[in-house]
């Protein structure tokens, strides 16, 4: 991956928008009410270097909304099932901290973040962890690494709306600022909708929305081919 110290990472460039995602895996005890589930914690950061409108300080509304969106996509698409992250029921589970950092903001943050997250998770290799029966402690075997089980591959497509007449796919920052609304559609490989995110903005007819969805499904196929090609090229042997 792109970050050598992380367990999995990916750098995605969509036009000028650059997003890097690093995944770090740690061990923790699972929650009491869901003893067989691990955790995935996404965090999207928009540091002040990526665009002049972001100041340093606590995360702004855009970063928090993006973090919530990524968490929803992971949950809705079931790309990583939390039960797969459990090592020992009620005792030990993996926590995947996914840090998504934008390095250059030129619009369409959500699409780039979803791609970066997917590619980074495909890059992750978790060491085998066993619990020693006598001592009750965990033993980490760094020599034996297994890739994560990724069940679904969601891809996001964003559109900028201009007064219900014009739709632009993959908007730049300038197009986003001038747009009267945005729609982001996340589909998985079966053509199912994982998420329709239309945060306000000018109204859209059902037919227009359907149009966006069909384009999103087409784009998904192209993106999946690209990601598979890249992952194959970096896998050793």
């Amino acid at each position, binding site marked *: 991956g792109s970050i050598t110290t992380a367990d999995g990472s990916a750098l995605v460039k969509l036009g000028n928008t650059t997003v890097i995602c690093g995944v770090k895996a740690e061990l923790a005890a699972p929650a009491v009410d869901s003893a067989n589930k691990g955790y995935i914690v996404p965090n999207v950061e928009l540091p002040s270097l990526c665009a002049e409108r972001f100041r340093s300080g606590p995360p702004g509304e855009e970063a*928090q909304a993006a973090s919530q969106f990524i968490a929803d996509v992971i949950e809705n698409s079931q790309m990583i099932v939390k039960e797969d992250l459990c090592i020992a029921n009620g005792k030990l589970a993996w926590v995947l901290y996914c840090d998504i950092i934008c390095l250059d903001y030129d619009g369409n943050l959500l699409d780039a973040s979803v791609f970066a997250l997917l590619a980074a998770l495909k890059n992750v290799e978790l060491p085998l962890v066993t619990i020693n029966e006598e001592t009750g402690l965990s033993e980490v075997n760094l020599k034996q690494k297994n890739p994560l089980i990724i069940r679904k591959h969601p891809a996001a497509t964003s559109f900028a709306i201009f007064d219900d007449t014009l739709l632009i796919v993959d908007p730049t920052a300038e197009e986003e600022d001038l747009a009267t609304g945005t729609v982001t559609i996340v589909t998985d490989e079966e053509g*199912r*909708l994982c998420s*329709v995110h*239309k945060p306000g903005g*000018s109204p859209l007819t*059902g037919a227009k929305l359907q149009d966006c969805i069909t384009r999103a499904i087409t784009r998904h196929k192209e993106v999946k081919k690209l990601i598979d090609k890249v992952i194959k090229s970096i896998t050793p042997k």
Partner: protein
Amino acid sequence: PGDTSVLAGLYGPAEAKLSKELPDRAALEVLLRPKVGLPGVLERSREQLLRQTCEAVVLGVLHPRTAISLVLQVLSDAGSLLSCCLNAACMALLDAGLPLAALFCGVTCALQPDGTILLDPTARQEQEARAILTFAIASSDRKVLMATTKGSCSVEEMQQCLAAAQRAASTVFQFYRDSVRRRYSKS
């Protein structure tokens, strides 16, 4: 609907802080306070959804360099919270007499595992559902102002839910009309 209740308070158009004011339109701000705990990332993303929905209907250009603040306090949550917030927000905008391009209402649809569509689900039904879709429908032409989904569904199912939501929207707008009529009638 049912036991979910949200209290909405609208303040404005009032003087805006220099850092927040926009030169050509009103600056809208939404604060969502959960029933327990401090507002977190989920509240922030909901605030963003509500804010952009309201910005689409409020004629902000009539009040430049002002601030309109909408504060929503969750009193009880028994399912369909986001649509309850949307409805509360719209009624607050109506009550304040702000110039609006259209009214909007929030409708939640739950897709059950067997494929039936349930409108305005309770918390129990939401948990059992395969997918939950929330739409904000505009009164002028029943177009979609805001859409957000939780869980995955097929495209046809989404269209069916959207059609059901548009039909249900008429009932909610009738309720708005009746409430406003009651408020302003001589009594």
